[in-house]
């Protein structure tokens, strides 16, 4: 069984991002970039399925600027077998990403595609569901457990009230939640080995997709800043302040 895993290059989750002074977006120049944390979880799950003998090949795909190749290398070092880079300097939104991934899936014919539940930059939480729709496949989103048995995949999902389990016909889409697994660190020998693994390079036009964005960002502003308040000296003072000053209890 072949598994595709789309991996997005995003601003590292530890970076305190800043809005650009001209309000055109977020400052990304000179900022540390990493693989979207949920996509590390997606790669890890695929590698575990391969280690169990369920998966035979893992293809890591990244779409965006040339440096996305580094994100693919990270996936290869974690255990993916080969990579596909869809290179463009243009802004890609989830609809375009889903269309490009569908074109790749049509060629590659995987049984399973594992994506992150959410990219921590655009916070859209949309691409996996959209790809499932375009392929006409079922979707198991926000997965905290995945079991494959023959032509069925059973996915336990993190939902608002707790957990929900669904069974899907393969081929299917899974999107990862935080508790699906704990991704491994790539070992040095595996990082060396990853350098020799192949990465296919293509452009959106090669896939016959018009990636033009449908949402235009008019401006980005900082959210209202909260000021640090006061330190209280005791529990009694806290309760008194909540009663008489804040009037919330």
């Amino acid at each position: 069984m072949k598994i595709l895993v789309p991996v997005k290059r995003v601003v590292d989750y530890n970076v305190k991002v800043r809005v650009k002074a001209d309000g055109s977006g977020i400052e990304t120049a000179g900022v540390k970039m990493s693989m979207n944390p949920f996509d590390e979880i997606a790669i890890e799950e695929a590698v575990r399925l391969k280690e169990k003998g369920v998966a035979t090949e893992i293809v890591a795909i990244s779409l965006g600027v040339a440096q996305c190749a580094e994100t693919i290398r990270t996936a290869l070092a974690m255990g993916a077998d080969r990579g596909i880079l869809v290179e463009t300097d243009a802004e890609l939104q989830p609809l375009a990403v889903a269309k490009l991934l569908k074109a790749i899936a049509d060629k590659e014919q995987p049984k399973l595609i594992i994506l992150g539940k959410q990219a921590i930059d655009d916070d859209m939480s949309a691409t996996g569901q959209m790809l499932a729709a375009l392929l006409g496949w079922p979707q198991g989103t926000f997965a905290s457990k995945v079991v494959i048995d023959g032509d069925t995949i059973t996915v336990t999902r993190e939902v608002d009230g707790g957990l929900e389990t669904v069974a899907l016909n393969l081929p299917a889409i899974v999107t990862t939640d935080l508790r699906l697994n704990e991704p491994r660190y790539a070992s040095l020998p595996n990082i060396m080995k990853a350098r020799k693994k192949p990465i296919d390079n293509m452009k959106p036009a090669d896939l016959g997709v018009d990636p033009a964005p449908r949402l235009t960002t008019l401006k980005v502003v900082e959210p209202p800043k909260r000021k640090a308040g006061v330190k209280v000296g005791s529990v009694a003072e806290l309760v008194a302040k909540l009663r008489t000053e804040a009037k919330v209890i």
Partner: protein
Amino acid sequence: MTSLVLLEYDDAGIKQPSRSAVAAAAKLGEIHALVAGSGVEAAAAAAAKLPGVAKVLAADAPALDHLLAEPTAALLVALAPAYSHLLAATTAVGKNIMPRVAALLDAQPISDIAEVVDADTFVRPIYAGNGMATVKSSDAKKVITVRAASFDPVAAEGGNAPIEAVSIPDLPGVSKFISAELSKSERPELTAARVVISGGRGMQAGENFKLLEPIADKLGAAVGASRAAVDAGFVPNDFQVGQTGKIVAPELYVAVGISGAIQHLAGMKDSKVIVAINKDEEAPIFQVADYGLVADLFTALPELAAELERS
């Protein structure tokens, strides 16, 4: 211009996040509401009472039970021709279904809006809420999820809309509901509570969350948690507040033994009043707290319970 809002419901009626989605839709024009599922009569009657709803569509079919994404999206797509905007709350259900609907309509979803500027233009958070982006959609139909914490919900009563049964299109049968393991609690839901008290890694163990209970009881609060507390198995996943958990904006948020990582702040920094209890006076949570108490939570929590009990 008419909007269709997908509602979520339980035995108590239409859920609060869905009533916030109706409030957002009210800024766009006429509103129709959709209740889907197996046996939706009571839910349709509850939906008909929401102020501002002009018509309720009731979609009743066994295949719609549990609102699985594949059949529910197919239903929404079948209904879409009559609508300019399709909306749902940013909940596990809304996030699961609406992007699927958008793709089938060749539209880019507009996720988690915090403000309606006009029929095409919306404000939404990006980068864990560290930026608020104003975006304009060029799609013919807008598919939207609504950040419930940013819109005051419409009341549960006051309207009297007609209910119309909709004919059910062919629904895909590629997915099946197996089971649900839902946390049972007498407390209000996190996203609807007036007061939230959350514990973090500093709580040290699941059983120590009991220290929060008398306080939550006294204040009518929901109990939440940081990711670290959930990952450590102290509490179930549905307690998580944050960028990738639940977004809350209660009147009062009490963070206990939580350091205040960006991802946690993203889920609670719009709360009206924030209290932090942490033994580390340098903890970043104090930078957003209106009232900070530097203290060991194991002494502060019993004291707080006693102090609230006293008066």
